[in-house]
């Protein structure tokens, strides 16, 4: 049944990973809920300052985003520099459906634990997740239909513009033809927190929701969402659509000649990515920030998600998830905490400056990755093959070219096995360089 040459990853994909994943998430939950309170404050304090619960939640939220962009960039090979747009739309969908924006006075309550006397629209988190995902997928299709025709660099530019347009739209959204659509610069707040919605309807006692440990329970909810995204990512890669995406990534022209409808296949990658982006947006607005405003949806966020994908290993679900955790942690707590640590060792004052230079540091990190580990932290098997070993026919072709040139100039007319070996060695040396450049 194995599609990939490695059976190990396949087995993992089918049976083992969900169990392992659940163990990790439940462990994180238990760590903060049960284990840490048992220790004295110096132990639990250092754990929570290096990895606060809020940062765990942020990491999980970013993992959703990175997995979504991975479908677009990693699977289908479409460079999307405006992925933040779907994150924003997802967030605003939460704003519209899980808050009392502006001076809306009506009460719409669907399966929430928000008191029914509260004004505004309050819809169950899980419904909003689905609505936002579908909305973003539709937006992805609408935007993608005209923009996915250009190739490579042009597509990157178009998506970059699209990301900016969406942000500007929300910035000016307090007066769309006289109507306040999304609160302009101020955005929408307060958005209903996750904890109050699902748990009240999932049988969790009321006492556990809506309290100070709310953040800890979010680990389970966000963990479940990440799990679903991983599941979809892994499954979809192995089917008809996943193959078409990989084929497009490999050779667009050949794919179309083999009956793959390019625009449709690209659109579906874009829509699936957008769906994840919408989920990430709701998770962010409801689970992490509790509010949305245009200033949060800048170009830097698109770049950050792209970094997570590249750093983790384009196309590899696990690499991308870990890349997301690493960068989200660095961005959220890590840099500051490293600064604090350095301060206490050397008496410097870095804990304020380090986080401000986050993009410089991430940039340097990316450059280092490109120099020393281009395929990412956990590379996809295929990419790894590409980076580490030369293409067989290419190598043979170079060998043949060199040999042919030699024969034509008749310099190597009396070639010996040694000189043949030297030619082959040159070919093997040259080929990785060519691969890297292409």
């Amino acid at each position, binding site marked *: 049944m194995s599609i990939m040459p490695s059976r190990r990853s396949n087995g993992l994909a089918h049976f083992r990973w969900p169990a392992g994943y659940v163990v990790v998430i439940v462990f994180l939950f238990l760590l903060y809920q049960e284990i840490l309170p048992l220790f004295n404050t110096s132990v639990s304090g250092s754990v929570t300052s290096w990895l606060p619960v809020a940062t765990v939640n942020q990491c999980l939220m970013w993992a959703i985003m990175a997995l979504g962009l991975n479908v677009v960039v990693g699977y289908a090979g479409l460079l999307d520099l405006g992925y933040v747009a779907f994150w924003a739309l997802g967030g605003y969908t939460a704003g519209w459906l899980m808050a009392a924006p502006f001076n809306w006075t009506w009460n719409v309550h669907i399966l929430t634990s928000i008191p029914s006397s509260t004004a505004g629209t309050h819809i169950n988190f899980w419904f909003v997740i689905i609505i936002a995902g579908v909305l973003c997928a539709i937006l992805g299709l609408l935007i993608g239909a005209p923009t996915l025709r250009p190739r490579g660099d042009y597509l990157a530019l178009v998506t970059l513009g699209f990301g900016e347009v969406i942000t500007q739209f929300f910035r000016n959204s307090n007066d769309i033809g006289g109507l306040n659509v999304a609160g302009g610069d101020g955005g929408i707040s307060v958005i209903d927190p996750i904890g109050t919605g699902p748990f009240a309807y999932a049988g969790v006692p009321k006492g556990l929701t809506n309290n100070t440990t709310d953040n800890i329970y979010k680990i389970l909810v966000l963990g479940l969402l990440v799990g679903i995204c991983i599941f979809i990512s892994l*499954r979809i890669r192995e089917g008809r659509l996943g193959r078409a995406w990989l084929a497009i990534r490999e050779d667009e022209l050949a794919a179309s000649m083999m009956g793959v409808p390019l625009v449709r296949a690209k659109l579906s990658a874009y829509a699936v990515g957008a769906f994840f982006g919408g989920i990430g947006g709701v998770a962010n607005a409801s689970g992490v920030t509790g509010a949305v405003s245009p200033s949060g949806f800048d170009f830097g966020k698109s770049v950050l998600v792209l970094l997570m994908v590249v750093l983790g290993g384009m196309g590899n679900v696990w690499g991308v998830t870990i890349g997301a955790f690493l960068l989200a942690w660095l961005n959220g707590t890590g840099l500051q905490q490293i600064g604090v640590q350095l301060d206490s060792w050397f008496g410097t004052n870095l804990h304020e400056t380090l986080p401000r230079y986050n993009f410089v540091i991430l940039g340097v990190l990316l450059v280092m990755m490109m120099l020393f580990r281009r395929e990412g932290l956990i590379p996809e098997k295929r990419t790894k093959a590409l980076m580490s070993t030369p*293409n067989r026919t290419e190598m043979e072709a170079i060998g043949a070219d060199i040999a042919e040139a030699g024969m034509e100039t008749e310099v190597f007319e009396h070639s010996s096995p040694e000189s043949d070996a030297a030619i082959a060695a040159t070919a093997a040396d040259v080929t990785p360089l060519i691969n890297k450049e292409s």
Partner: protein
Amino acid sequence: MTAAPVLQHHSGGQDPVAANTLYADRITIAFGGLIAVNDVSFSIAPKSVVSLIGPNGAGKTTFFNVLTGLYDPTEGTVFLDGSDINGVKPHKRAALGMARTFQNIRLFNLMTAEENVMVAMHSHLKAGILGTVLRLPGQRREEREARDTARELLEFVGIGKVEGELARNLSYGDQRRLEVARALALRPKILLLDEPTAGMNPQESATFVEFVYRVRDEKDLSVLLIEHDMSVIMKVSERITVLDRGNLIAEGTPDDIRNNQQVIEAYLGKTGTREGKRKK
């Protein structure tokens, strides 16, 4: 021989559109002011093996690209199975039964041999996103059947043992075979082979001729070749069309072509010297 070639579409007086699997009716292709192919008609009868030859720059590849839908002809119409396919996108033509291989092998290098073949089944498979994610019974059956078919095809072209190997790791000859297997996965009515024997040694070329007939007979299709190797062309083709500088200069059986003065002047003479050079 007369200067103007007589077009024979061996249709026995029938309507050439209906009688042929593929019929290209008076195709002209111009790039700006440059006419690459000038008023060429061309036909492929059901279950035939035909070739398109001509010196470099004769317009063979351009004509080939019109057939597969990469270019639209400036003038003229292409008919596949009696219906006009002008303006039909390449992927639709592929699904309609026009499969090709590439002169410079274009496999999906980082996909396995089996996956390469399965990509070409895209248009025959139906599974959607939901079916794939939930692995519904229909999707699972479809995938299983597709995988079996892929293995059969790999077996058919003689590389049954390499299904799990990445395409880039295959030897040159196996890559050429894999390209044919991938094209056959489209269940084509016409198989277009673009210089299939490039890089093959004489023994391989000889086996190739048998292989073409085996494909034709077992897969029930027509084969169109673009080829430079005259010995292969003369052995494999039932009919040959000769282009020179965008014009059709001859059409007929290998014997007709061999004795056609115009062809000898335009093509064979030059090729003869080139072949002589290569042998040295």
